[in-house]
């Protein structure tokens, strides 16, 4: 993989060049004391050492609400609506990049979802090696500490004011040349980047799964009837916060809206959550997952088994957002998987 060196003082010129043609988002501290991707305004202070972006970046590729079709109420003709604005997300941690790569695969699987794929194609992702780790994060123990694909450029801070930038795509390389040409990285600079990654990954491993993460689908398959599901879900408020902040949750609802004259309208999808009571409710008031236990277990099976069975990756990237969002303190995948491991016999 080609790698370049970019010095800090060159960044404003690069950012301004990129922001001419694309909506550029950068990580920054919010007044509320969180970190968030905000639009680059020419002078925003970049939070290089952020630990976790509060909201998952899935909104860049699958907005909370997105129009899918427009229709005419008179002749009932409907047309697809594709929105794919050019955008660049700068500074995404590898586990979030991995989450988006999963969505890429799941949205392409079977009948491809062009609303997603077109938006994704217009999105440039610049990964950034983390410099700090959120208290609730465990990404290094689920194989999400580094990514080999899914990014256009991969930035690693290797000195007080210098970055090693690995190239992930031709588009990324072109963007890097948008201002004055960057210099190629030397072997020692590449080594510095490798060490920076190892250092943070080692620190992140303080929160550990008790087993190799690839055992998770087998672990779950043996534990459908575990008492843990009931015990944990007893205090579930069915608020759906864990779904909302999850970077890999993508379930959606479809909603119609019409104009005041009742002539035209749109159908949109909006994020939905499998933890909400009505998620599997059908006509006649029959609910296929009536209990918190059913919904809670389903969510962990999706993350730990169903998605793995489809694409060979764990559906949980260990970002720790759900741990922080859950007011009942039951949504900790690491705690759930470890508890299941401890109570299992491991006899295959």
């Amino acid at each position, binding site marked *: 993989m080609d790698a370049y060196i970019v010095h800090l003082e060159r960044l404003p010129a690069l950012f301004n060049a990129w922001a001419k043609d694309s909506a550029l988002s950068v990580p920054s501290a919010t007044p509320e004391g969180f970190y968030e991707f905000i639009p680059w305004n020419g002078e925003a202070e970049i939070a290089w050492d952020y630990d976790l972006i509060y909201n998952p970046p899935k909104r860049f590729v699958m907005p909370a609400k997105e129009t899918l079709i427009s229709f005419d109420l008179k002749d009932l003709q409907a047309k697809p609506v594709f929105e794919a604005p050019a955008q660049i997300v700068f500074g995404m941690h590898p586990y979030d990049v991995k989450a988006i790569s999963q969505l890429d695969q*799941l949205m392409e699987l*079977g*009948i491809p979802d062009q609303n997603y794929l077109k938006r994704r194609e217009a999105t440039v992702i610049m990964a950034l090696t983390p410099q700090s780790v959120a208290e609730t994060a465990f990404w290094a123990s689920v194989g999400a500490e580094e990514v080999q694909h899914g990014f256009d450029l991969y930035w690693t801070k290797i000195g007080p004011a210098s970055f090693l930038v690995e190239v992930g795509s031709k588009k990324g390389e072109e963007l890097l040349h948008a201002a004055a040409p960057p210099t190629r990285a030397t072997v020692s600079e590449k080594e510095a980047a490798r060490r920076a990654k190892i250092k943070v990954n080692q620190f992140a491993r303080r929160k550990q799964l008790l087993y190799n993460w690839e055992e998770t689908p087998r672990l779950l398959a043996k534990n459908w009837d575990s008492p843990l599901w009931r015990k944990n879900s007893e205090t579930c408020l069915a608020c759906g916060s864990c779904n909302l902040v999850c970077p890999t949750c993508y*379930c959606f609802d*479809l909603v*119609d809206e019409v104009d005041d004259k009742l002539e035209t309208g749109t159908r949109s999808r909006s994020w939905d959550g499998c933890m909400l009571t009505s998620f599997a409710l059908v006509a006649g008031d029959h609910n296929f997952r009536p209990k918190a236990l059913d919904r809670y277990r389903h969510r962990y099976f*999706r993350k730990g*088994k*169903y998605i793995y069975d489809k694409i060979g990756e764990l559906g949980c990237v260990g970002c720790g957002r759900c741990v922080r969002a859950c007011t009942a303190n039951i949504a900790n995948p690491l705690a759930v998987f470890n508890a299941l491991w401890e109570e299992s016999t491991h006899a295959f």
Partner: protein
Amino acid sequence: MPFKKDFSPYVPRPATLKEKKKLSELVTLFTFELDNGKALAHRPGQFIQLSIFGVGEAPFSVSSPPDPSKQTFELAVRKIGAVTQSLHAMAPGQKVAIRGPYGTSFPVLDFVGKDTLFVAGGLGYIPLRSLLHYQLRHRSEFGRIIVLVGCRNPQERIFTDQIEELTARKDVEVLETVDIPDAAWKGNVGVITTLFPKIPIDPTNTSVAMVGPPIMYRFVLAECRKLGINPNNIFVSLERKMKCGVGKCGHCMINDLNTCMDGPVFRYTDIEAYQEAI
């Protein structure tokens, strides 16, 4: 991938309501025709997504059999939610929009040369009617046709005149029951499994197609097991909240299966290991 880049699976096609026929207090049979002049080209057991723009979209099983001589298709719909209330308020000539057909169907060839046991609980008769009438049109290809129909009460019976015609035929065996009779009801009383002892079934040569309320399946399956019917020859159609119809939105999942694409019709042995199925 054979999909075009501007293809959206979410765009429905306009269709016109041709006829309306009341089947019970809440259930009406609607006959539709696609405005593009093409047949729906569905298979027995498949479903469509019906849109009433501005109100929403809901999934319905197609009740008519595939019929190359006809452009129309039928949906029997119970008035129960927003979309179905609006649909029931429509008059012939008015338009809706249709996506689909979606999902798996009853594998017709698996029924050829065998006896077929239909087990229809309540509205379950609606999707089964598609397979049943298909078999009747190709009557000689199939063995005995046994139809068990169960309803909560006599007022909720649907397709009563058609069922009467079937009862009169010599080549179809029909048995009906209701859970709660009224004064005029002279037939069998009890849940649908009470009909099983009333009819001889050859377990070695019978395929089963069953659709009904969620509670029905485990009891009917137990009866089939008692008779010794090969579970490979049992087909069920399962209801879930199909929303997108293309395996993306997550609403209709049975464990990791998407009912909209992997179902709604399943061979029983394909789903018996799934905890959320039956």
